[in-house]
Every structure is written in structure tokens, then in C-alpha cells.
């Protein structure tokens, strides 16, 4: 491996932190889903790096699973966002407090 594993961890960590920031701070449902996606991908990067570091295919298999889960998550998430937008006419998460 040309790139040291620690660098992969640092990149993954930075991207994960960006994802957390995006999910927590942005007042927009779509941006929140985007943040969650970014976090998932950060984890996938670390998995792929670890797979190469220990020469073990399990990590890459896991990345494929993460991709599938992320795709279905986006499909369901966007569907729910569209529904929520039709109900309330807004993307602001603080408007959705019916469960309270």
C-alpha cells in the first residue's frame, strides 16, 4: 500500500466530521440526508483502506453492502422527504414535531 493507513484514517475521520456537522447544523432535511450519506461513505473509505492494510477481502465486501444500504436509504429518505414536504410545504426539520 502506497498510502499509509493512518492517512486513510485521517481522511475518513475528516469526512465523517464534515458529515456530522452537515447533519446537525443544516436546517434542511435534504442536507441532513446528505450528511448521513457522507458519514456512510467516510466509513466505507476506512473499510476499503483497512481491507488493503490487512489484505483481507471482508472490508471490500462490507463496502459493497454499505453502498447497497446507502442506495436504499436514499430512496426511502427522499420519498419520506417528498411526503413531508407535501404535508407541510417546508424542509425545515423543526417543523416536524407532530410526534411530540
Amino acid at each position, binding site marked *: 500500500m502506497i498510502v499509509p493507513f493512518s492517512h486513510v484514517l485521517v481522511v475518513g475521520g475528516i469526512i465523517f466530521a464534515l458529515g456530522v456537522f452537515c447533519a*446537525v447544523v443544516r*436546517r434542511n432535511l435534504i442536507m441532513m440526508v446528505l450528511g448521513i450519506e457522507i458519514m456512510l461513505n467516510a466509513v466505507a473509505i476506512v473499510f476499503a483502506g483497512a481491507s488493503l492494510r490487512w489484505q483481507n477481502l471482508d472490508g471490500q465486501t462490507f463496502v459493497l453492502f454499505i453502498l447497497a444500504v446507502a442506495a436504499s436509504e436514499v430512496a426511502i429518505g427522499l420519498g419520506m422527504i417528498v411526503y413531508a414536504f407535501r404535508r407541510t410545504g417546508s424542509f425545515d426539520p423543526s417543523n*416536524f414535531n407532530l410526534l411530540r
Partner: protein
Amino acid sequence: MVGFSADISAVTALSVATLLPFVAFLLILIFTRKRPRLSASLAIGAVTVSLACSLTLLGLNLKMAGPVQYSVRLLASSGFDIPFGFLLDQLSVLMLVVVASICFLVQVYSLGYMAGDPGFSRYYAFMSLFASAMMTLSVSPTILQLYIFWELVGLSSYLLIGFWYEKFSATQAGKKAFVMTRAGDVAFFIGFLLLFLHTGNLSIPDLNGPAASATMSPAAHTLAALLIFGGIVGKSAQFPLLTWLPDAMEGPTPVSALLHSATMVAAGVYLFARLFPFFSMSPTAMEIFLAIGTISMLLASTMAIVSRDIKKVWAYSTISQLGFMIMALGAGGYFAGVFHLTTHAGFKALLFLCSGVFIHRYGTNDVYELGRSGARRMIVPTVSIVLAAAALSGFPPLSGYFSKEAIVGSMAGLPNPFWLAAALAGVFLTAYYSFRLIFILLLPRPEKGPPVPASHGPDHGEAGHESGYGVMAWPLIILAAVTVVLGFLGNPLEHFLLKSLPGGAVAAGASAEGAGIAWSHWAALGLAAAGTALAWLEFGRGGAKQIGFVEKIPPLYRLFAERWYIDRFYGLLVNLVIDRGISYICYQNDKKVIDGTIDGLSEATIGSGRIAAFLQSGMIQYRLLVIFAVMVLLSIYFFFQVL
């Protein structure tokens, strides 16, 4: 093996030839979609370089002793890897040259044909994608790589059939082509997985060697051969998956010339030739291939007899000629099949391109209409189409004559005379339907022709204009010259091709081609002349009514015009099994089981939510923040053992 320097230059030339059109595809789609002229010059420039490279490779290959193979390993881990590279031998270099030259000619022709179309750039992008995929397919060293590019040419076929996507029939035809070829490809996929399980190896030279059949039982060998043949049936539109090809004529005419007659549909036959030694080790499978080829050949010729749509006649004729090639290969005539593939690519592309000129000028696909509008006044396409039709019917000295004689010769070498009879019947029908069309086109009857059915109005978006005729004429002239000359290259080509086969198969092929030439040769020629004479009697001579003998027998006419009810059968099958069977069950499952469960769950959730609603403020982001904070604290606790 060859010297090191020749090896390197061959690999470089191949990489350039196969990658450059793909680069053009990407550049056009990303950067130059708004600038049609630049897109076209990019695509044509790329394909010109590819053509030059493949001609160089042909020159290099003539001097080479053995095949050149070069591959890199992809996805290498855990003791498994996928080799990706090139296999350059006589057969692949021949296919490469055929594909590159027809691609080049058709792309030049399209400059005139597609001029002014709003999707001009998109068209050239897809054409480049096709050129790249098809050339890589030709030089694939493993079945897996071949399969990947096999699917890519299928994709570009889908995109180009549905090119005029505003037209409902075009999108439907694209979908039909995609689904039907995919049905064959599933069999192909299972077939090579079976091979992989038995031999642990998908490399084409290894499969063609004696080791592959030694490791498999004869039954498994036959099963794998039959399953792989399923892919060939789908791609080359053979029986029973033949009805997608006539519908594919909804695409632009140059697309039909390139993909659906000369190169892509011939990929199936090419795969057959590629794995010929492997297939020929299973006599049962070869017998079945022979039967499938014969059935498709005869069925499609009967359909061509009654069609009024000029492109559909050539489409049926393509199925029929591909059937001829599969018959020849199934009978052991390796050279006959590949030679017919080469000559057919030339003259069938020519037929389509000529028809394209007429359709472009007069805006209709109907042969009678074209004849009445005065199609014969256009000298170059008229002369070319007559030449190409004569080559298709197998008249000397045109290229089709030589290849068809080779096929009939290999049929005559078989012990069972039925195959020879079927091939001769095919020769007769081919001559009949080709010259029926030619006579209707050249000798129109303004008042007497049968009335035009409503469904055959001008339905192509490219209707009547005269522009671009010059740029369209040159490819016609070049292809016509090739059609005249190519047949005389038969003998050198045979020596060139047979070098690439292992010894046993060569002997089998040669013996099949050597025997029985004498009288079957004259019989084929006589029957072609008889077919033409019948066409002259019914469509050509002075008082002829231009009504074929089939049209006088209504039930037979309906059978042929409805494509032997194959489409109806598929429609019924889809309706009964998929619409009313599987999708009904799925619908009920979705409604009762899944929806019921989710409704139940959500009602339970609502109920319990009411109870738990005291506890929260309903602000989701605060909760997210708390979750992350807790997780950070927990990870600090676990990793650093603090607190």
C-alpha cells in the same frame, strides 16, 4: 511467439484503437454536446485512427507466427483475479478490421444522413461507444471480458434503436431488443459460470485447447456449449429470439447498417467462431446449432418475402444470412462461416446505406412508394443496391457468391442430405426476395401496385431533403467496390484464417469444405437464377401485377406477415405468465403482506408514541447532537481508558 518489439507495437496499436473511440464518447458527452460539428469530427477522427491502427495490425499479423496475448490482472485478491487484455490472432484481427472499416464508413455517411438532427452529438457519442466496445469485444482474451463488452454493445444498441425517443414505437423497439437479447445473455452467463466451475479458467485459447474437454464430462460440455449458444441466439437474432431485429429498424438507418446487420448482430456468429474448437468437441450441440441456424434461415426468408418495408426486408435477410453462417459453422465449415460473416458485413451494410439514401430523400420506408417516387433516378445508390442484392443472392463474381458457395459446399459434405436441401431452398428464397424488392424499386407501376396499408406511412423523422447526398455517396462507392473485389480474396483469407485453429478442427473443416463442391455449386447457382427469374415473372416483366405468389394464398401470407405468430406467442406468454401470474402474486403480496405489516407496525407505533410523547421536544437535530456527543464520549472512554 514473436519478437519483443512487434509485440509492444501491436499492444500499443490495439490500446489506441480500442480506447480512442471511448475517449471520444466521453469527450462528446461531457464537453461538446452543444457543438455538433466538433462532436462529429472528434468521433470520426477517433474511428479513423482506429481504422489505421487495425490495418497496421493486420499488416503486422500477416508476418507473425502465432497469436499475441497481453493481459493485466484486475481485482487481484485472495487467489482470484480477472485478467483483462488483448488476444490478437487471425480471427480477431479480421473482425477488428471489418468493424473498424464499417464503423468509419457509416460514421462518414451519417454526416449527411443525420445532418440537422437535434441529437447529432448524442448520436456520434453513442456510435463511438459502440465502436470502442465492439472492437474490444473482438480482441477479448477471456469469455468474461468478452461478456462485459458484449453487454456494452447491447447497451449501445439499445441507446441507438431508441435514438428518436420522442417516438413511442422506437422506445418500445429498444426495450424489446434489450429484453430479448438479455434473455439469451442470461443463458450465456450461466453457461460460462458452468465452464468456470468445471475448468476454473475462462481464457479463450485454453478453452479451445484439448485440456478443457478433458476436465469436463461430455454431458457438462454439451450443456455449457448449449447455454453459451443461448447468448448467440439472442445477439444474432436466431430462432426463437428473432423478432427483436425487425423492430430494431426503428433506429436511424446508418445504425441499422452498422449495428443490426454488419457488426453487432454478427458478434454472436463471431463468438461461435471464436469458440469453434470448443463447440466442435460436442457433436450433439453442433447438431442442435445446425438445426437452429436452418430454422432461423428459412423462417426469416419467408418473412422477407412479404414485407413491404425496405428496411425490414433487409432485417429479415440479415437474420436469414446469420442463420446461414451458423449453419456453416455448425456443419464444421469454419472458414465458410467466417468468410460469409466478412462478405455479408460489406454487402449488407451497403444495402442498408443505399436504402438510407432513398429513405432520406423520399421520407418513406415503403418499397412501392419509393419506386413510384422515382428512386431509380439516383444513379449511385441504385447501381450499388443492385450490386449488393446480386451479391446477397450469390451471383458471380460478387463477394456473396464465393462465401455462399463455401457454405453450400460445407453443407454438401454432411452425411444427411436434408441440410443441403434446406441451404439450397434458402438460396432460392434469398434470390427471390432480394430481386422482388429490386424490381419493385426499379420498375414501378404507378397505377397497378397494391394499395398502401395505413400503417406504412412515412414514419421517420428524417423525411425528404436532398442535403448531404455527396458525403453519403462515397461510402456507397467504397463498399460497392469492396463487394466486387472481396470474393477474390477468399483463398488467401482461408490460409490466413486456418492458421489460427488447432490441427484437429482444421482437418474437420477442410474435409467438410472439400467434398461435394462440384454439383452443389451448380445447383446453388441455378436456384439463385431461378429465384431471380420467379421474381422477374411476378414483379419485373412488362405486364406483371407485382403481386407475389405468397400474397395469392391469404392464410400463408398472413402467417408470413405476422412473423409466424412468434410475437403473438410471446405477447400471450408475457400476458399470462408475467402480467396475470407473477405480477398478480407480487401485487397481492405487496398489498396484503407488506402493507398490512407496515400498517400494523405503524399503528402500534402511533399508539405507543402517544404514550411516550411526554418525554420529548420533537426537535430532531438536538437529538442527533446528543447522540453524537454521547458517542464521542464513549469512544474517548473506550480508547483512552480515561474518566
